[in-house]
């Protein structure tokens, strides 16, 4: 009913200060929710994207058992049948063969156990971002081809091993006969990815070089696959499994390969919900409190309204509308502010490197780009409205039950 709505609306502005306190607490809550959701989304997305773009790709084909052991003996021959199955899939953007094995890198200063990855540089460029992560100074260069026998290590590993571009190191690795073989390699280039653990533990050399060194000949450890669209992962994975129909092979998505990443994302989401719950409880109390005060103040006039024939349900609606009014104004302000700030930060990024080197160890990189999802904003709005309704129920019922007689005494 329109008149009740306009009474409710005008009532809102009778005690401007009190209403503004509630409105700003709602909008602050919403603002904080949108921004923190944005940051969490951004972090999650960056964590996932970085993992995909540094090493995993979206899908990998291995010899069954490789994922659990990551040993050289789990290798396979990339037969035409396998390649054809991958190439047939239209959602595949790029794929590349690799060898992955544990090894030891030794300089004159120190030694480190790392994962050495044998790559086909041209294919790898299309699959992962390792080429983009290469330092752009003159000395640092990428591998020239699968037969390149130089090595790429990260800037931080180079520092630990006290190596510069052009220096030599020794790589020691178990070959397929479980003999330790060692070979001298030149550091061809340095890279720096957003993921600290990746930088600490991964190095690259040519695929054929590693095949020769380990005696794998034409065999490889994995084929990594990048899709046009990440969302297609499960479908393509299932399709490949069926197309390959080979019990000796396993086909894994990035979620299978990085279960800890998936659980980290889940953990962040849970933290988010706890934070939201706190915001909602604040909103509930501030709205309920304000409405109860407002009703106590207007005891008499509610009595007048009832004594001239206003039914209780209309009084109930009036209070609900006042609550909705507070919520809507707060929401509008909060969404506008939160949306604007988050949108701005999603372009500029939030540089956390100055106080949190450990952000890199989260695998997000040190600059977070908040990402807003329309669905999240929508959810936040729905939740605040629902919360408001819950908060207003008690005061509204109380107001509807005011006895005109008691209220009339009360001036």
């Amino acid at each position: 009913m329109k008149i009740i709505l306009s009474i409710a609306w005008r009532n809102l502005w009778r005690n401007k200060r009190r209403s503004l306190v509630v409105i700003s607490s709602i909008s602050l809550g919403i603002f904080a929710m949108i921004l923190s959701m944005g940051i969490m989304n951004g972090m999650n997305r960056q964590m996932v994207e970085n993992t995909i773009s540094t090493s995993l790709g979206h899908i990998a084909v291995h010899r069954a058992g490789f994922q659990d052991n990551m040993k050289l003996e789990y290798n396979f021959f990339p037969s035409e049948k396998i390649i054809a199955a991958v190439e047939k899939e239209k959602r595949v953007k790029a794929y590349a063969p690799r060898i992955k094995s544990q090894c030891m890198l030794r300089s004159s200063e120190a030694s480190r156990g790392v994962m050495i990855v044998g790559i086909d540089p041209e294919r790898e460029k299309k699959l992962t971002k390792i080429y983009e992560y290469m330092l752009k100074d003159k000395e640092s260069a990428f591998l020239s081809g699968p037969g390149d026998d130089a090595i790429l290590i990260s800037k931080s590993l180079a520092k630990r091993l006290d190596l510069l571009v052009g220096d030599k190191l020794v790589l020691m690795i178990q070959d397929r006969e479980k003999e330790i073989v060692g070979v001298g390699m030149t550091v061809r280039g340095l890279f720096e990815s957003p993921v600290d653990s990746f930088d600490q533990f991964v190095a690259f050399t040519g695929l054929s070089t590693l095949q020769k060194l380990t005696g794998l000949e034409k065999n490889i450890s994995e084929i990594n696959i990048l899709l046009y669209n990440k969302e297609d992962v499960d479908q393509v994975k299932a399709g490949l499994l069926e197309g390959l129909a080979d019990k000796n092979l396993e086909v894994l998505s990035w979620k299978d390969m990085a279960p800890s990443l998936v659980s980290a994302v889940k953990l962040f989401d849970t933290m988010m919900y706890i934070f939201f719950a706190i915001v909602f409880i604040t909103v509930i109390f501030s709205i309920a409190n304000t409405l109860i005060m407002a009703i106590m103040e207007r005891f008499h006039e509610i009595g007048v309204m009832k004594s001239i024939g206003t039914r209780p349900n209309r009084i109930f609606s009036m209070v609900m509308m006042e609550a909705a009014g507070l919520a809507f104004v707060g929401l509008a302000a909060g969404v506008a502010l939160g949306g604007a700030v988050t949108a701005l930060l999603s372009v500029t990024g939030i540089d956390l490197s100055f106080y949190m080197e450990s952000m890199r160890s989260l695998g997000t990189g040190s600059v977070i780009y908040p990402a807003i999802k329309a669905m999240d904003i929508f959810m936040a709005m729905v939740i605040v409205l629902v919360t408001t309704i819950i908060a207003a129920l008690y005061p509204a019922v109380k107001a509807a039950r005011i006895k005109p007689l008691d209220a009339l005494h009360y001036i």
Partner: protein
Amino acid sequence: MSIIAIENLEKEYNTNGIVVRAVRGVDLSIEPGEFSAIAGPSGSGKTTLLNIIGGLDRPTGGVVKVGGRDLSSMTAKELSDMRLQRIGFIFQAYNLIPVLSAIENVEYVLLLQGLGKEERTRRARAILTEVGLESEMNRLPRELSGGQQQRVAVARAIVSEPDIILADEPTANLDQATGAGLLDLMKGLNNSKKITFLFSTHDPMVMERAERLIYLTDGSVMSDTKKARGKRTGRSAAAKKRAPAKKK
């Protein structure tokens, strides 16, 4: 038929074990078109009586019929609707919804009754003009004087053309002249619209203008006198134009 019929009405208040008999065995009938006052000292039960007639309070004994219907048989919602359709209330003060302008306050009851916009505005304007507030229609209650506020309350009580208007000490917060003006206004409406007025008062000026004076003491009717019309002074223009009295 009496528009208000009260038989052996009792009302007791029990506050922490202390029982107050606010109304004691009142018999009273009010005929349509009356302009009557319930007088009596403070605490004599005037407000209680009016509240019971208006269905705002329930009696502890006796029977109250309004327009032939026994109030004790009505639900809270029915009582609410009765107040909306058949009874207009005017209280001592603070009668209006503070966030609504004078005309909106008057329109409010018509809205509750479900009247259309044009009809509402037309009737609200007409009635506010009648009570002499044509230039104050868009003011909020707090921008009006006490007398003007009471006039809006009268306009609101009357706009829905109820059968009865119950006014609880309507002039108590007004000065003598303003109170007299308000009473003349009510008398004029009583004549022109044939609405029954029942008000409470302990103001001699009001008692003097009433056509029937019911005197309460300690919750009982001490005297009930009907006065001949025409003896009063200070009648409004509307009152002067009225049709010949139905009652003497």
